[in-house]
């Protein structure tokens, strides 16, 4: 390693040698950049010594120039990661006896320690974006941070483009103001948008060195060739669980990733039903009690488990050396996500990660093949980071006012210097500031009750300690749904479900939770009370938790496979045959353009559109299409959306699909629907919490059961009527367009297919349409479709609710 001696001091070189390590080239490059005071973005695969690379310059600087005061700030998206890095970094510090104090500060840090950290900060502090925002809101923030030399942002790819990322970018801008000399280091996995990440770390074209670590060997990813029947529809892959168990048996430690909490529950249960040898297999997902998750993680760390069934709750996190296989049950939905999951096996650079994909149905076979091809080609997906959101800006403005006085001009300059807010209009900033000040309503009745006041220099300051206190209680951009604990009788809590889900349960309904089939008894003392059920399939499939739509990139590849029979080679015979039948009975969807099939079945006429734009966009499309079909007189009755297609049924067959799918549906119809949509209401609630209008519910702050809940829906209705252009409503619409309704993606598709829509009239259902028709009545209808009920089908549904069976079966 030439060049190593000149940058690596002897003490460090010896320490590396004593461990039998050689510094990675990217570690040395980063070291040189730091010597020159340059910021850097390091992109490297997991296991590449990325974190040590980030810290090495600070360790050396502090070893050579010992000093007091905060020197290096490390920011990670996960508390657990901050704690783990702390532990790992303690080793070189102790072994080389470096004069460095290292501390962690997260939401779990006791108040006394936090207080002490403010008065006497350590040289190195490991924290999260939320804790950084909190520290920056202190009046003594300047004192704490002015001597800062380096800021390390870990797992940057997981933060950029999210609201947490917006919050962090604003925090970094403030740090830059308090400590203009400090360097920044971004650590990231490989992403599809490296320029955007670079801009995040060094906004406005500031100098930045981009370093790319050597790629590890390509992962070995295969698709399970099941011996069982491959289902036409469904997402649970129950057919393949025996084969998954076989793989677990053959490996040391396996992580079985699934896409939703419902899948996790069912998969775990099925594994244990077949687990005659009682291999230690655990369950991990975001609804389980924290203590239970920590227990599972500890058992994993100690190598005591043979497998853990997990959702995205384990996508990020601490490395477990013993994991030698990753199984992905259900299609991966995105390439970047798959890369991340696969990377959790064998965190060692020199060995390839091993993974097996388990498609749950025929379409998922195509999706899995598309994902493997993308992985081999090294092409990634993920959306380009969207602009910063106004609700986060509101929160930040209040935080800054809690810290020290500012003028509107100064703060606008600071904020628009960040990458997410680079294009922020001054009007939007001013409206956000007005909102923070007193709500910003046109009706000026609140001028008596300002949260901020302007001093004689025109600088804004927070009016009272109470306002600052309330801000500090509400920091953060993750708004948890209101949760209820789940108990068996009066026993200990098994975990939590969304209140929304619990409210839909009727006594006697069965559902799976924490690996058990439970019967709902009632809600008592703000907890769901249940008893163990005797067996059978759960009546209520489960709650939404964690479903992500298919990415555009993967969808493109699936379309490519469908359109090109040459690429079918090696596909399982049933899938092969299915596609050949489609070719014969109808046509295959083309790579560009849009295939629409229309056929009668029973008393109804069906229209199936092969859009491949993901479930959310399809649901929005379904809403808009049925409205338009109503007007055109086709008498639509309902629709169902999957990740791949949309099916609409009506009394009369559709004609003139060009008009039906015209882009102008995104005009007034969309506007009208969005305004009334329950999705928008839910989005508004999150926006209102983040912007500081509504207090978040804090854990432990149990609602008094007689206390009347305060509804954000009511605020939404009143605000929409009287001030439709209020900054919070603008924020809500922007948020919804990119999130749950996926309007942006729908718009892209409609534009792409104009003039290229082909209608295929068939006398009966086509092979490719079978899966979606099987979803009818089985698929939970979420979000947008919920609204159709209230307008059109209420009588029937209520009748069904009262007299008929609810949800029949799961598969």
């Amino acid at each position, binding site marked *: 390693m030439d060049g190593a001696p000149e940058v690596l001091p002897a003490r460090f070189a010896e320490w590396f040698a004593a461990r039998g390590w050689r510094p990675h080239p990217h570690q040395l490059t980063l070291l040189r950049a730091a010597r020159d005071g340059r910021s850097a973005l390091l992109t490297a695969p997991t296991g590449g010594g990325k974190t040590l690379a980030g810290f090495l310059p600070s360790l050396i600087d502090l070893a050579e120039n010992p000093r007091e005061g905060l020197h290096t700030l490390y920011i990670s998206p996960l508390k657990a990661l901050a704690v783990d890095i702390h532990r790992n970094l303690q080793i070189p510090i102790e072994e080389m006896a470096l004069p460095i104090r290292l501390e962690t500060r997260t939401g779990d840090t006791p108040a006394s320690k936090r207080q002490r950290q403010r008065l006497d900060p350590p040289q190195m502090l490991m924290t999260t974006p939320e804790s950084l925002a909190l520290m920056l809101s202190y009046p003594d923030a300047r004192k704490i941070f002015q001597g800062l030399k380096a800021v390390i942002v870990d797992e940057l790819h997981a933060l950029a483009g999210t609201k947490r990322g917006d919050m962090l970018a604003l925090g970094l801008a403030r740090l830059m103001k308090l400590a203009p000399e400090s360097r920044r280091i971004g650590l990231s996995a490989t992403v599809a948008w490296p320029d955007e990440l670079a801009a995040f770390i060094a906004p406005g074209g500031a100098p930045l060195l981009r370093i790319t670590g050597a790629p590890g060997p390509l992962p070995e990813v295969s698709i399970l060739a099941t011996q069982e029947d491959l289902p036409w529809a469904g997402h649970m892959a129950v057919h393949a669980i025996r084969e998954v168990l076989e793989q677990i048996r053959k490996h040391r430690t396996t992580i079985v990733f699934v896409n939703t909490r419902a899948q996790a529950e069912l998969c775990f249960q099925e594994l244990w039903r077949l687990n005659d040898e009682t291999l230690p297999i655990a369950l991990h997902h975001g609804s389980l009690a924290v203590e239970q998750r920590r227990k599972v993680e500890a058992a994993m760390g100690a190598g005591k488990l043979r497998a853990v069934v997990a959702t995205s709750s384990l996508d990020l996190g601490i490395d477990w050396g013993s994991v030698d296989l990753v199984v992905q049950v259900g299609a991966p939905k995105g390439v970047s996500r798959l890369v991340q999951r696969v990377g959790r096996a064998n965190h060692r650079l020199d060995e390839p990660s091993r993974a097996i994909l388990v498609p749950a149905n025929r379409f998922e076979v195509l999706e899995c093949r598309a994902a493997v091809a993308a992985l081999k080609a090294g092409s990634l997906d993920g959306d380009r980071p969207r602009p910063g959101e106004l609700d986060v800006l509101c929160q930040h403005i209040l935080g800054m006012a809690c810290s020290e006085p500012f003028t509107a001009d100064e703060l606008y300059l600071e904020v628009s210097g960040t990458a997410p807010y680079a294009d922020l209009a001054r009007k939007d900033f001013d409206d956000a500031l007005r*909102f923070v000040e*007193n*709500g*910003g*309503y046109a*009706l000026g*009745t*609140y001028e*008596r*009750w300002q*949260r901020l006041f302007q001093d004689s220099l025109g600088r804004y300051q927070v009016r*009272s300690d*109470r*306002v600052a206190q*309330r801000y500090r209680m509400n920091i953060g951009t993750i708004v948890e749904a209101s949760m209820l604990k789940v108990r068996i009788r009066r026993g200990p809590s098994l975990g939590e479900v969304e209140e*929304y889900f619990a*409210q*839909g*349960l*009727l*006594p*006697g309904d069965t559902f799976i939770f924490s690996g058990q089939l439970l019967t709902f008894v*009632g809600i*008592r003392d703000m907890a769901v009370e249940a008893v163990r059920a005797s067996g059978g399939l759960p009546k209520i499939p489960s709650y939404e938790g964690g479903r992500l739509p298919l990415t555009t990139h993967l969808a493109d590849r699936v379309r490519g496979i469908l359109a090109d029979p040459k690429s079918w080679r090696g596909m399982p015979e049933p899938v092969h045959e299915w596609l050949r039948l489609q070719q014969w009975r109808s046509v295959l969807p083309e790579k560009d353009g849009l295939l629409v099939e229309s056929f009668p079945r029973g008393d109804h006429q069906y229209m199936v559109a092969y859009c491949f734009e993901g479930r959310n966009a399809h649901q929005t499309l379904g809403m808009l299409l049925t409205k338009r079909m109503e007007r055109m007189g086709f008498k639509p009755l309902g629709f169902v959306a999957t990740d791949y297609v949309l099916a609409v049924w009506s009394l009369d067959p559709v004609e003139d699909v060009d008009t039906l799918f015209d882009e102008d549906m995104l005009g007034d119809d969309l506007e009208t629907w969005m305004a009334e949509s329950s999705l928008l209401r839910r989005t508004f609630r999150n926006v209102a919490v983040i912007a500081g*209008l*509504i*207090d978040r519910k804090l854990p432990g702050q149990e609602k008094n*059961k*007689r206390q*009347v*809940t*305060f*509804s954000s829906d*009511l*605020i939404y*209705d*009143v*605000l929409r*009527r*009287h*001030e439709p252009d*209020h900054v919070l409503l603008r924020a809500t619409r922007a948020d919804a367009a990119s999130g749950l309704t996926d309007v942006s993606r729908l718009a892209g598709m409609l534009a792409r297919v104009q003039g290229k829509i082909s209608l295929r009239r068939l006398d009966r259902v086509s092979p490719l349409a079978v899966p979606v028709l099987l979803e009818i009545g089985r698929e*939970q*209808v*979420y979000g947008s479709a*919920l609204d159709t*009920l*209230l*307008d059109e089908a*209420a*009588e*029937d*549904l*209520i*009748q*069904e*609710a*009262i007299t008929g069976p*609810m*949800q029949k079966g799961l598969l």
Partner: protein
Amino acid sequence: MLPPPKLRSSQVTLSLSGIELLLDASGALIWPEQRMAIIADLHLEKASAYAERGVPLPPYDTLTTLERLEAVIAAHDIAQVVCLGDSFHDGGAGARIAPCDADRLRRLTAAHDWIWIAGNHDPEPVEGLGGRVVEEEWALGPLTFRHIAARETGEGEISGHFHPKASLVVRGRRLSGRCFLHDRRRLVLPAFGAFAGGLDARAGAFTSLFPSGFDTHLIARERLTTLPRGWHRPRA
């Protein structure tokens, strides 16, 4: 196939102690014979109460509530209005109410026989806005009007206070809204105020009030939906 039952409409009639009453989809109860509107839990000036504490909720709640009230009064040709308490969110409401809203309310109270029953939020309803104050309860014919339902009551009690709401999910879709609850003896009204929240009809409070169950009339999308007794209990 059976014809679909008529379950949704903008009004529902029921009889309590022999009196014909009309449930209105606005959340008001109408006694047509008396040209009386009965309204619960207006919570006027709730938003400004929050704003005073640094939570700037939109200041349009009083205006919105008064507009709704005017609409009910006009639609049913109302002569008398009985407000079942918690009409004002707190004692400071009178000092905070915008002059134009106060004038609007004064015009209403002047034009109708207006009764404010005191509630826990407004034990002393705001003065200077017209109407007469009744502290505990008020009765007319066989009906008794209270803020909070009494533990023991005869037939014919009408009250507010609890802000009942109901939700049920069918095939993953949710119907949710404020509701009227009643049995043979008593009727609990939903909150009328624009920013008044709600308490789930399955809460224990209602089980004690209605030991042998209750009927539910749910307000969703400006319509009333009648859920039969026991909709919230297990089905066979």
